[in-house]
């Protein structure tokens, strides 16, 4: 699964990066975010785009697994 790292990016770039990568990889994507705001924003976007999002908390980051 392709993985993108959105750590340290300002709003709304984590969501934009997710959106762009999903257009190239419609089957799914792993997204690393480093704050709750980006986590919430990406999660909300994934739901509206018809993906499930499972979230695992890591040290200082979250891994979001987006699947169709």
């Amino acid at each position, binding site marked *: 699964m392709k993985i993108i790292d959105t750590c*340290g990016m300002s709003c*709304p*770039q984590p969501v934009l990066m997710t959106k762009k990568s999903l257009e190239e990889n419609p089957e799914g994507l792993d997204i690393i975010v480093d704050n709750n705001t980006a986590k919430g924003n990406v999660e909300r976007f994934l739901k509206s785009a018809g993906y499930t999002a499972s979230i695992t908390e890591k040290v200082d980051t979250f891994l979001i697994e987006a699947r169709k």
Partner: protein
Amino acid sequence: MNGKKEIIIAGGAVGIISVLLVYFGNPANMGFCIACFLRDIAGGIGLHRADVVQYIRPEIIGLVLGAFFISLKNKEFQTKGGSSPFTRFILGIAVMIGALIFLGCPLRMVLRLGGGDLNALFGIAGFVAGIYVGVIFLNKGFSLKRSYNITKIEGYIFPAVNAGALILLIAAPAFIFFSEKGPGSMHAPIVISLAAGLIVGALAQKTRLCMVGGTRDMILFKDMYLLSGFIAILVFSFIGNFAFGFFKLGFAEQPIAHTDSLWNFLGMAVVGWGSVLLGGCPLRQLILSGEGNTDSVITVTGMLVGAAISHNFGLASSAAGVTSNGKVAVFICFVFLGIVSYWNSESLIKKSSSEGLSKADAE
């Protein structure tokens, strides 16, 4: 935490609290105005000498400290920095110049409309147009690049500075300026202003309330979340103003406003465009400053300096209208925004020497 209901409640609270602050003594339609209040603080510490707009606004201190405490409590305090700090500093100046052309930050723009000031409609139109331009560059890969984790103490300094400002306000030493007339002399009691700031700071931190984010996310993702907060502020400030008898519909003789539609539009276009590049409106920058985001601290510092420049160079508008210096400044801001937008947009500068770095960031 990310429920739409929460942000509507938060927006509603901001609308009502803003009207209450006016009731307790703040200038009309200025329960909150991040640009005006930073401008007053710049005057209070003598960075400019416009004697009608000098006061250390406790609302600002409250917003920062409210966000600080709630982010500590929720373990969301993260000290970060290093995302194009000097670009952000100048963007802060530009946003402040634009806001003082219109006479209000995006939050006051909404509060002005909620109070019946129809000039704000031109402001909103310009704001949306500016956001739209910013979004075009976001879609072309605009980024001020990553921020990084830095030492915790760096993030504590700005909240500490705000606590220091509170001491200066209360102690009122002779070197702090306090307006004796004009908007700077009109303020709610310190305790009320501070409490209002703390409450709104906490709410805005929890809900990520952002005036520019609403329109931006609507255009980009058809996402209504932040926009519902924006609308809630408008609706509830309207209700509040009506209830207190403050509502006054029209263009002419609105409080701390002018009727020059074109420059209301252009001023807020600078604010909208600049705020999209920064990743959030002035309110959001203050909240992030409290959460340990030192890039936002730099932005707020830029806004403070921008306010001083605006008044020292005669750029800021007044009820009498826009100044010719102000018009030139808006033009310079647009040129600057254009250059920053272009040179930080990945797909527009593919052939530049930073290709390796840009690619690494895109991965």
